[in-house]
């Protein structure tokens, strides 16, 4: 049963990551710097919402199969049963969300947005490649589908890091400022959550591959990694920045004010 709780928590962790970064990217919809890039980032947001749905659906399935003894919330309340993808996304509170902090920090300018996506999607690409070996075939299948999307997210965001880093004086300065602002949130990527107990996971290997890739791209773009190494962490265990509450307030308002409403 402990193993099942761990798997459910890990699925929620992956789903919450996808939902929150998807929401952040969707905030650009209608505000992109140019029509074509507006469509590009909205497509990426939709990819993430799709991943979130897959993980929530699978988590809900497992929760409903094993409801006894499963207390998946940080705050001690039991989850609303039967669980659905919607109840998991719309009816859990801030402390129950397990997304990484890097997904919830505000978009900032285009440099911040594309850099965050590059750092996160490269991490996820490595993580999901390991998940292909997961003993739960459904998790492996979701990972396989997501990898195709993530590969494009990495390519697209990496292009922007290179373009801005190796662009004009202002674009370089903005991309470097984005690195200074976001770097403290990258340490959390490689802290293996307690519930991430699947045998296929090796966070040290992810970090090695990620470091190699990020260093190479920064070098090509003429950017540098900050020397200070303070790590912001806690998101995977439900300890969030003040920003997540605002996201959930906007995202969950309708379902909480008008339960089960549809349109």
């Amino acid at each position, binding site marked *: 049963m402990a193993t099942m709780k761990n798997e459910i928590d890990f699925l929620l962790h992956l789903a919450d990551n996808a939902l929150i970064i998807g929401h952040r990217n969707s905030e650009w919809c209608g505000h992109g710097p140019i029509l*074509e890039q507006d469509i*590009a980032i909205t*497509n990426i947001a939709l990819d993430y919402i799709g991943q979130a749905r897959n993980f929530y659906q699978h988590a809900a399935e497992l929760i409903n199969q094993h409801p006894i003894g499963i207390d998946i919330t940080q705050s001690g309340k039991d989850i609303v049963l039967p669980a659905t993808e919607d109840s998991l996304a719309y009816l859990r509170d801030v402390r129950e969300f397990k997304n990484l902090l890097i997904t919830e920090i505000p978009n900032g300018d285009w440099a911040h947005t594309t850099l965050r996506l590059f750092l996160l999607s490269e991490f996820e690409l490595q993580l999901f490649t390991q998940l292909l070996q997961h003993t739960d075939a459904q998790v492996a299948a979701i990972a396989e589908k997501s990898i195709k999307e993530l590969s494009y997210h990495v390519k697209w965001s990496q292009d922007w890091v290179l373009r801005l880093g190796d662009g004009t004086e202002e674009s370089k300065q903005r991309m470097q400022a984005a690195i200074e602002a976001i770097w403290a949130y990258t340490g959390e990527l490689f802290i293996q959550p307690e519930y991430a107990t699947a045998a296929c996971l090796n966070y040290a290997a992810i970090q090695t591959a990620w470091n190699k890739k990020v260093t190479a791209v920064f070098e090509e773009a003429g950017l540098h990694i900050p020397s200070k190494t303070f790590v912001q962490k806690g998101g995977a265990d439900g300890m969030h920045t003040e920003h997540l509450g605002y996201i959930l307030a906007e995202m969950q308002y309708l379902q909480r004010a008008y339960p089960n409403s549809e349109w």
Partner: protein
Amino acid sequence: MSFQINKLYYGDYGESKNGAADISTNQTNTAEWPLWEVFIRSKQGLDHKHAGSLHAADAAMAIENARDVYTRRMEGVSIWVVESKYIHASNPDEAGSLYDPANDKAYRHPTFYHLPEEVKYM
């Protein structure tokens, strides 16, 4: 006596002055990205067909933008892009002299041959 010679490009027609096509062709407005024409080959098709146009800073970005703008609904398996300024178009004012002479030359259609009995499925 002086003549002004206007070189016409695809997309020039119907565009306001300094519209998208002008930006693409005259290279004076550096704040705007040039215009690109996108050609998509579908799963069934053998040829790339014109899908539309978009703005991008260079060819690599044009292909990525084309992927995001024109293949969202599984339209294609291959993308070509070409900067609009490299496409030369016929002048619509000359349509009469260019195309009308073909009107009364029906004998150019391959419909006057007698097909042998043995040839089927033509």
